[in-house]
C-alpha cells in the first residue's frame, strides 16, 4: 500500500513540473514587457532598468524558470501586483470561503444525485428514471452563471425569500468568531444565531446553483454504473439465492457500482473549480474565484499564476486520493 502511494506520488512530480512550465510560459507570452506592469508608466529609464535587474528579468529565461521553481518549492509564489501581498497569503485568506461554498454544493449534489441515480437504475423506465434523465439533460446544458441570475430573480426579486447577493454574510452583521473559518459552522458552534441566519441565507443560492450543475453527471454515472452492476452475474447469483431486493441493491450492487461514482465526484469537483469563478462573481462571494477574476481584469500575473498552480495541484492531488481510495475499496486494483 505505502509502496503504491509512494509510486503515485513520484509520478506526480513530472506532471507538476510540466504544470509549472505551462504556468511560467503563460506569463512570458503576455504581449508587452512584464516590467510595464510593475512600474508606473512615468518612471524613468533608470528606474525601469534597476527594477528589471532586481526582478531578474535580464537573466536568461531558463534561469528565471529555475528561480521560479525554487521560489514555488519554498511556497513563494511572488507578490501580487494589486494587493502587494505574497500571493500565497492572498490565496490562503480566500481559500475558506471557496471551500465552504464548494463543500456545501458537493455534499448537496451527492446527497441528492446518488439516491436519484440508484432509484433510476432500480426502477428503470418509470417516472423517476425519466425525471433523472430530464434533469441530467438540462443540468449540463444550462450555463451556471445564468442559472445564478435566474435564481436571484426568482428568490430575491419575485419571492423576497432570500437577500440580494451580499457575499458570505449581510454587510451590517459581524462575522462569527473564527473556529473553522466556515461562517455557517462557526456561527452554529458559537451560538451566534444572527450570523447563522445571515450566512445560511447567503450561501443557499450559490451552493444550490453549483449543486444543480454537479448533480447531472453524478446521477448519470450512478445510474449507468448501477445498471451494469444489477445486470451482472453476481447479482443474478444473489437473486437466485433468494436474497431480499434491498440487500441485493445496497449490499451487492451498490458496493460494486460506487467506484465510477467516486471518480466522477473528483471530475465534477474539478468542474466546480471553474464554475465557482463564475458563481462567485455573480454572488460577490469573496473567494478564490473572485480573486482570480480581479487578477485577470488587472493583469496581475503572479496572482493568476499562483491560482492556476494552486487549483491544478488540488485537482491532481484529488485524483491521487481517488486512486488510493480505489485500492482501499477494490482489492482487484491492488497489483
Amino acid at each position, binding site marked *: 500500500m505505502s509502496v503504491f502511494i509512494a509510486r503515485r506520488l513520484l509520478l506526480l512530480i*513530472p*506532471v*507538476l513540473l*510540466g*504544470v509549472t*512550465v*505551462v*504556468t511560467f510560459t*503563460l*506569463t512570458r*507570452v*503576455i*504581449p508587452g514587457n512584464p516590467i510595464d506592469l510593475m512600474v508606473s508608466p512615468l518612471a524613468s529609464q533608470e528606474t525601469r532598468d534597476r527594477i528589471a535587474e532586481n526582478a531578474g528579468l535580464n537573466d536568461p529565461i531558463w534561469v528565471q524558470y529555475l528561480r521560479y521553481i525554487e521560489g514555488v518549492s519554498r511556497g513563494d509564489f511572488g507578490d501580487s501586483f494589486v494587493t502587494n501581498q505574497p500571493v500565497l497569503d492572498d490565496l490562503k485568506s480566500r481559500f475558506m470561503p471557496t471551500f465552504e461554498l464548494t463543500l456545501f454544493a458537493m455534499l448537496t449534489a451527492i446527497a441528492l444525485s446518488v439516491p436519484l441515480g440508484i432509484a433510476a437504475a432500480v426502477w428503470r423506465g418509470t417516472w423517476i428514471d425519466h425525471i433523472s*434523465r430530464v434533469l*441530467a*439533460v*438540462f443540468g*449540463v*446544458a*444550462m*450555463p*451556471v*452563471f*445564468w442559472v445564478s*441570475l*435566474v435564481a*436571484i*430573480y426568482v428568490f*430575491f*426579486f419575485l419571492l423576497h425569500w432570500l437577500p*440580494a*447577493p451580499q457575499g458570505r454574510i449581510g454587510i451590517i452583521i459581524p462575522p462569527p468568531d473564527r473556529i473553522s473559518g466556515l461562517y455557517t459552522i462557526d456561527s452554529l458552534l458559537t451560538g451566534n444565531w444572527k450570523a447563522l441566519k445571515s450566512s445560511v441565507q447567503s450561501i443557499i443560492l450559490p451552493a444550490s446553483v453549483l449543486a444543480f450543475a454537479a448533480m447531472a453527471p453524478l446521477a*448519470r454515472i450512478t*445510474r*449507468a454504473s448501477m*445498471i*451494469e452492476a444489477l445486470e451482472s452475474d453476481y447479482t443474478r447469483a444473489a437473486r437466485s439465492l433468494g436474497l431480499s431486493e434491498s440487500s441485493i441493491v445496497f449490499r451487492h450492487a451498490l458496493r460494486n457500482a460506487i467506484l465510477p461514482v467516486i471518480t466522477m465526484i473528483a471530475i465534477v469537483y*474539478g*468542474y466546480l*473549480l*471553474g*464554475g465557482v*469563478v*463564475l458563481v462567485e*462573481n*455573480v454572488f460577490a462571494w469573496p473567494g478564490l474565484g473572485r480573486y*482570480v*477574476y480581479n487578477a*485577470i*481584469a488587472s493583469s496581475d500575473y503572479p496572482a*493568476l499564476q499562483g*491560482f*492556476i498552480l494552486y*487549483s*491544478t495541484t488540488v*485537482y*491532481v492531488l484529488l485524483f491521487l486520493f481517488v486512486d488510493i481510495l480505489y485500492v482501499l475499496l477494490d482489492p482487484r486494483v491492488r497489483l
Partner: protein
Amino acid sequence: MIGPQEQIVPGLTALARWCRRNPVTAFGFFIILGLGVLGLLAPLIAPYDPYALNPREKMQPPSWDHLFGTGIFGEDIFSRVLYGIRIDFGIGLGAVAFGLIAGSSVGVIAGYYGGRIDEVLMRLMDIVAAFPGFILAMAIAGVLGPSIPNLIIAIAFVNVPVYARLSRSRFLVIRESLYALAARGVGASDFRILTWHLLPNSLAPIFVQSTLQCGWAILDAAGLSFIGLGVHLPTPEWGVMIGLGAPRIIAGQWWISFFPGLAIAITVMGFNLIGDGLQDLLDPRRW
C-alpha cells in the same frame, strides 16, 4: 420504370422510421438544424439591426415591438440573440475543429510511431489534462487577450488531450484489426491503410465526442465572455449579453440576461442530445 419520385420516398420513410425509433436524437438534430437555419437567415428575420442603439427605448420589457425586450442601450435583444447564433456556433464549431485536428494528429502520430514518441506525446497530454479545463482556458484567454480567435484557441487547446487519447486508443485497436491486416496482406501501403482504412473507422467515436464537445465549447466560451475574457462588447455573443444584463437582475429587469441564456441552454441541449443518441448507437449500454 422507377422515377426519381419513388427513389426519394423510401429515403424519407427510412428517415421517418429512424426518427420514430430515436425521437430524442431526432429532437436534438431538429434543434441544431433549426437554430442553424435561423442563424443563416438572421438578416431576413431580425426586426432590428443588432448593433443599433436606441436610447429612447432603453430596458423595455418584452412586447410585440421587441419580442425579447430591449437592453441597457435600447438594443433589440431578439435581433441580437438571432445574430448570436452565428457567433456562438462559430466559436463552438471552430474550437472543436481546431481541437479535433490538433488532438487527433497527436493521437495518430503517437499511435503510429509508438515507443518513445508515443510516451513523450502522451505524457505532454497528461500535463495539459492535469489542469481543470475552464481554469486553463481562462488563463490562456486572459493572457492572449479578449478576442474571438483567442477564445477559440483557448478552448481548443484545453480539448486537445481528449481527442489525442481517443484517437490513439481507437487507432491502436484498429491497427491490429483483421481488415487492416487484410489490406496489408494485399500489399496496401502504410499511407493507404492509414487514410482509407484506419481513419474512416476511427471517425465514429471521434464524431460523437465532437458533438458533445461542441456543447461544452459553447458553454465555456459564454462563461469566458461573461467574465470579460472572450468577445468584445458590441458583438452579439450570448455570454456577453448575459453579462450586460447581470447587474439589472436585482432591479427585476430579467429579460436582458434571460433570453441569451435560454439560447445557450437550448443549443447545448441540442448538441448533447445528438451526442448522447449517437453514443447509444455505438454503445447501447450507456445512457
